[in-house]
């Protein structure tokens, strides 16, 4: 794998898409600012989810060249190997778009809280507290987010016709699967890590106990699924024909 080719591919991406990405960032900033103006934790959380969903749709743009015959031929004959093309898009999705999302979220929250502060100075302390709590409590959610990115990354290479709707459908299915994994791992954690006397005695105590445990199964499941779907994406790219 040649780093120079990856840099060239990234440059080529920016030449073509920097304007679109600015519009996309503004859309996130405006949405987050609007939602963070009121309704406490639910609206802030909703704004974050919305930004995450928008980020999950970015692979459609990254692999947009694969959806039409002429652009697919152009993309596949760019002098870079299949692995370089996949790695470039992985970097753009997991680093560039995530940074873009985080920056846009921060600006959006600042803007929203700023407006809120003008309206009611007490609101700022309240909102800031909510945000801090939300960020510190979601470590496993970050991992779910990155493994979901791996799934939509694969889906966007795999589906050639109506990729948008198929990606949305994939997102729904992935959410259900991840929800099932989360629930089952929580149950597994309870069984494996909570002593029987606590487990049988008090369910709430069990959950409290679990929340202090590392949740290793979820971490492993997320990491394995990430590796699996990126490997599948590479294989799919290698066998893509014009």
């Amino acid at each position: 794998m040649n780093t120079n080719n990856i840099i060239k591919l990234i440059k080529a991406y920016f030449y073509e898409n920097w304007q679109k990405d600015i519009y996309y960032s503004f859309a996130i900033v405006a949405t987050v600012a609007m939602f963070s103006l009121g309704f406490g934790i639910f609206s802030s959380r909703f704004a974050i989810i919305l930004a995450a969903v928008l980020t999950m749709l970015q692979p459609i743009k990254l692999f947009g060249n694969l959806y039409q015959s002429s652009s697919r031929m152009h993309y596949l004959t760019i002098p870079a190997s299949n692995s370089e093309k996949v790695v470039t898009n992985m970097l753009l999705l997991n680093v560039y778009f995530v940074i873009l999302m985080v920056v846009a979220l921060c600006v959006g929250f600042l803007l929203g809280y700023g407006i809120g502060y003008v309206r009611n100075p007490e609101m700022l302390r309240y909102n800031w507290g909510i945000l801090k709590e939300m960020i510190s409590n979601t470590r496993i959610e970050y991992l779910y987010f990155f493994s979901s990115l791996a799934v939509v990354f694969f889906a966007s290479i795999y589906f050639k016709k109506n990729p948008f709707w198929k990606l949305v459908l994939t997102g729904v299915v992935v959410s259900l699967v991840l929800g099932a994994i989360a629930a089952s791992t929580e149950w597994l954690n309870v069984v494996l890590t909570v002593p029987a006397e606590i487990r049988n005695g008090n369910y709430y105590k069990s959950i409290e106990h679990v929340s202090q445990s590392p949740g290793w199964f979820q971490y492993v499941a997320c990491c394995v699924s990430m590796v699996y779907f990126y490997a599948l994406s590479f294989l799919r790219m290698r066998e893509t024909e014009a």
Partner: protein
Amino acid sequence: MIQLNNVEFGYDKNRKLFNGVTWHLEPGHLYGLLGCNGAGKTTLLKIMTGLLFPQNGEALLGGQPSCNRTAEQLKDIYFLQEEIHVPHLKIKQFEESFAPFYPNFNHEQFTEYLREFEMDNMLGFIDKFSHGQKKKVMLAFSLATNVPLLIMDEPTNGLDIPSKSTFRKIMASYANEQKTVIISTHQVRDLHSLIDAVSILDNGRMILSASTDVITDKLFFGIKDEQSPEAKVFYSEETPKGLNQVKENPDHKESSLDLEMLFNAAVQNKQEFTEMFQ
């Protein structure tokens, strides 16, 4: 450089488009690839560039299977498609974006070709240009890449008459010992006096692949009166000057190659042509 060995391919499982196509290309030639509509010229070019994978046989590009599509293989070829895709970029941005992938890209040549196609003053986005204008930009870019293998699928489709002349003029001075060019086209008049090797694809087979010198050595092209009467006639066509014929050339007389006549003769005498030029 490029070798196709017994390549079999079909879009439909029950109907093969190619039944063992073998084609070896030597560097330093300008090949004209001819074939009827649906003969599979574009498909063959896609297989050569690794955009389609042969179902049987092998397609080698630089000694490796073309379907590997390694960076090393791809930097040595440029495939100018018939249906051009251009990103939403201006000419200068397009050059800055894609020229770095081609180590022999020459900016001065690109500017010169654009000037010759009268596209040097175009400032807008390429995807907003007309089809012919897009084609001219991409032609200029593909020629400026100076890749060892340039593949052009119907390059003159959509070009106006002056641009076709410009294309012929540029191509006449383009090929050299390091560069190989394959031009696939229906418009054989655009290739006249340009190519030095002809390949004809018909019914899933390469029925002829030879240099123009070999062709004119084995075949005579001309009006009936000028030819030796005993030679076998492969094809004849009534023209205002008389009966134009393609016939055997046992005396090795000189004549100028008529691509249209050659194509018709080859299609009507597949077996004989395959054996003659094997």
